[in-house]
């Protein structure tokens, strides 16, 4: 069935909030902003006229002696030599700290394990078929055959490394209606070598884990190992 376009849904907020929004923008800068180019042109002209007038005066009175101590730039050979020393000191400072001292993020004999999982929990309510009478009560754009709750279960994940639980967290679904994925991102720095890794996931409430994977892995120095979840294949992945 073709849904009707309800013009009021769009027009009313625009009419009500549009002017308020524009009024706020107008008072918070736009009014001043649009004046700027004009003001700049006028100011530039005035400045040029003033500068011209002042230069004329300066030329007319060339040779007028300044009063008191006037310390100009030091353009003596010794001055230039000392300046060169100071420029060199500045350059050395900039050049050195632009690349030194070096920083060690992860020592070469260490590896990194990243647990990165973005997984939507299962829906809390099952979908229900709506009757004709129920559909008739709804506005045209809301008439769908199945009524589905949007809220999802929070997802709980724990990770064990060499028999020790190193990560355990429950993450709420994202979104205003709690209908988005639950997000996990954690890094672990471990010594290179052999490790036992286990990841368990619970995404439907209760106490049982419905996904789990254990593996023995050998990590080389600086290697990045990623534990993730394949949302299409519904399995924990190790890469």
């Amino acid at each position: 069935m073709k849904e009707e376009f309800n013009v009021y849904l769009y027009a009313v907020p625009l009419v009500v909030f549009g002017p308020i929004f524009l009024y706020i923008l107008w008072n918070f800068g736009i009014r001043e902003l649009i004046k700027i180019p004009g003001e700049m042109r006028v100011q530039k002209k005035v400045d040029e006229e003033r500068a011209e007038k002042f230069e004329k005066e300066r030329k007319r009175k060339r040779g007028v002696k300044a009063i008191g101590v006037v310390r100009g730039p030091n353009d003596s050979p010794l001055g230039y030599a000392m300046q060169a020393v100071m420029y060199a000191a500045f350059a050395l400072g900039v050049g050195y700290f632009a690349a030194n001292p070096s920083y060690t993020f992860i020592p070469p004999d260490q590896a990194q394990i990243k647990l990165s999982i973005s997984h939507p929990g299962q829906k809390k309510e099952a979908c229900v078929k709506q009757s004709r009478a129920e559909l008739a009560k709804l506005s045209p754009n809301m008439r769908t055959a199945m009524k589905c709750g949007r809220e999802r279960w929070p997802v709980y994940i724990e990770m064990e490394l060499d028999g020790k639980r190193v990560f355990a967290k429950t993450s709420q679904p994202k979104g205003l209606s709690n209908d988005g994925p639950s997000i996990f991102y954690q890094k672990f720095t471990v010594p290179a070598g052999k490790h036992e890794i286990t990841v368990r996931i619970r995404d439907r409430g209760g106490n049982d884990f419905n996904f789990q994977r254990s593996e023995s892995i050998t990590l080389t120095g600086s290697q990045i190992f990623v534990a993730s979840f394949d949302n299409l294949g519904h399995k924990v992945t190790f890469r």
Partner: protein
Amino acid sequence: MLYALQAPFRLIFEWFERLFDKPFGPPWNPLRQLGTLAFFFFWVAAVTGIYVFIFFDTSLSGAYESVEHMTHEQWYYSGVMRSLHRYSSDAMVVTMMLHLVREFSRDRYRGVRWFSWFTGVPLIWLLMVSGISGYWLVWDQLAQYVAVGSMEWLDWLTIFGEPVANNFLTRGSLDDRFFSLLVFIHIFGPLFLLFGMWIHILRVNRAITNPPKALALGSMVVLVVLSFLMPAVSNPKADLAIAPSTLNFDWFYLFMYPVFDEWGGGAMWAVSVGLSLFVCVMPWLPRLKEVSAPEVMLDKCNGCTRCAEDCPYGAISMVPRTDGRPFEQQAIVDHDICTRCGICVGACPMSTPFRHEGKVKTGIDLPQMPLDNVLEKANAVMLKAKAESTAEQPSILLIGCDHGGEIAQAETSGTKSFSLPCIGMLPPSFVDYALSRDGVDGVMLTGCGDCDCYHRIGIRWTSDRMAGLRDPYLRKRVPRDRLHSFWGGGGELDVLETEIDHFRERLSTLNSDVEGHEGEPS
């Protein structure tokens, strides 16, 4: 607490400024040109960046190789341009941060100056974004480290549906499209930065954005030499399956990342945002107790425009006459951008102590320090100086400003002082008055340091007025050898004292010459 911090910073800056004044001279002293140098380094980075971008391959697979080609195959040109790009950006961080601390130490961030201070804070963020995004583009291990760190930092906010750091999770996670986004950030960051820099100086009249040519040339030469001697090079190529280990690190831009590794995203956001907000509100901690802005006395204002021309902040504008007097214009003061320096009072041709009935009246006056009070003060100080003067200690009227040194410390027998909000407030006719028949033997002007006037151009206008270069002029009849000036600021009080001694000797000689002439038979 902020006051307590200002004093040591001020002392440190004064010490270094004095050190740098010797080889450079005040006009070329880089510490007095930090803002203009930051602008200059921005332009160097912009021009070299455009050049490097022409040869840069914006694809993920070609970025590293193109930068390597520039660095090693064309080291003598493109490589130098790359190094210049890096070093000028680093130099901009240095000059910008020093500029910020220096303005704080000089208390040039409160009152109506809040605008420049406040708009300067986003510039720090924009500069950091511009610089950090530049490091991403090289796509070496440092880029990988910085990109992943930045994304993890952003992800802490949980504002994205999926963690952005997942774009850098494994080999193949990152695609050309996302890499192009990084390129765009590096282009638009500096554009916004430039826009912000323009806003930053919007309220400054006659803003100077270029350093003196010699300083610009010297800075450019030293950056080029540095680029040849220590060319910027990349770390090994990025590989998302390999964790970056030991990195050659640019501490100017990336100093936050090791802290982030240590503290995590939450603490880093708290520190960076908290610090920025604190710096933003500093102008109101506490708020500067501002006195009333100058008032225009229409019965004395003939609309000559001199006050508007001399105002360092463009706070005075000329509008059509409202009182029916036969003049075209009158001055009005914008209280929101006026710093109450009084330079306009010094510019007004009506500000003269000579022609007055009763109180001195001028066209524009400071309510907290009317010109009449200045005259009273000057008369009182002159009386004191004359009362203590001797043949060896001629009377000297020392006039300073509230932002220079404590000139009262330079007072001696016969030398007495008073200060004004800015030396630019002093009308030249007051010098004429002080040296006239019943006045003192000499007038000494002092205030902030050379090229470092608290109110930007008070010293310049005063020097020009006294030299007869700027209206209102010091009249020709005033004996110039009885007028002296020294601009040393708070850091050179000892030199000021020496200058006063020399001036005193000169005046003694002049006095004895005059007495000699008076004793000669006509």
